[in-house]
């Protein structure tokens, strides 16, 4: 019973993390496009934060898979 519970939560968390990563990646691409379209460059810090935001869910997936 315990094993099944942990397996289900792991699958759920990985699914959520993948969805979040995909969303963040699309958001990053759209934000870059918008900055070019509007002629408003994203500041360095914001750009880096967007990249971190894309990478972070993948790190979470890795940790879930390792642990």
């Amino acid at each position, binding site marked *: 019973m315990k094993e099944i519970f942990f397996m289900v939560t792991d699958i759920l968390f990985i699914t959520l*993390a993948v969805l979040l990563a995909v*969303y963040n990646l699309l958001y990053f691409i759209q934000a870059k496009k918008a900055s070019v379209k509007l002629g408003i460059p994203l500041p360095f810090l914001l750009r880096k934060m967007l990249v971190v935001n894309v990478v972070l869910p993948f790190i979470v997936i890795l940790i879930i898979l390792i642990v």
Partner: protein
Amino acid sequence: MGGNGQVEQFKTYELNRGLRFNEKLLIITRKHWFVLVPPLMAILGGGFLFSALIVLLNIYVPFLQNSSLPFTSILLLLAFISSLIIKMVVDWYFHIYIVTTRKILEVCHTPLAASCVNEVLLDKVRCTEVDVNVNGIINEFIDIGDVILTFDRPTHQEEFMLENIKNPRNVGLFLSDVLDQGQRTLTPPVWFKQKDKFEGGGNGHRFRFIDDITPKYQAGGLL
């Protein structure tokens, strides 16, 4: 004026590309960064509460004590919170107000969700009011407020609001000067529509020529 300083600040943004001949940028501004603080606090507070709940579950539910579930759930929560915060900041960053000698623009772009461009051509409308609203002690202290421009169009009245901007009083004064100057160069309308049904002898909402009200000429010569 602060507006010119802001134009200098945004010079690298190449917004001049969209300007027509003889059109100059007057103000480019966005909402004050302080508007981000309340939702940021709410997100961080919510995140803290969830984390506390996870820690409590870890303490009081025996079979979770030796598992990695609390750790991974807090990590996922952190990723989710960081996404929300970045989204909020980027949405704020892409919401700008632009005033040129020819038009007033509100450009907002929410990646993956929405985008809007509200534009008022100043040579097509008549600005009747420039109102400045500063509400609350915090807004008064850090100088945030709304500038509301009321335009009188032939068919209806319309408001254009520059919300939660920095230095609203200076911007309001600057805009009222600019719009006043602009309107002096415009030709007055040749007709208008009565707002009151019974105005002008009870003819209903009829269109009337300006010369009927303030005649420049009469039979026999200039008044």
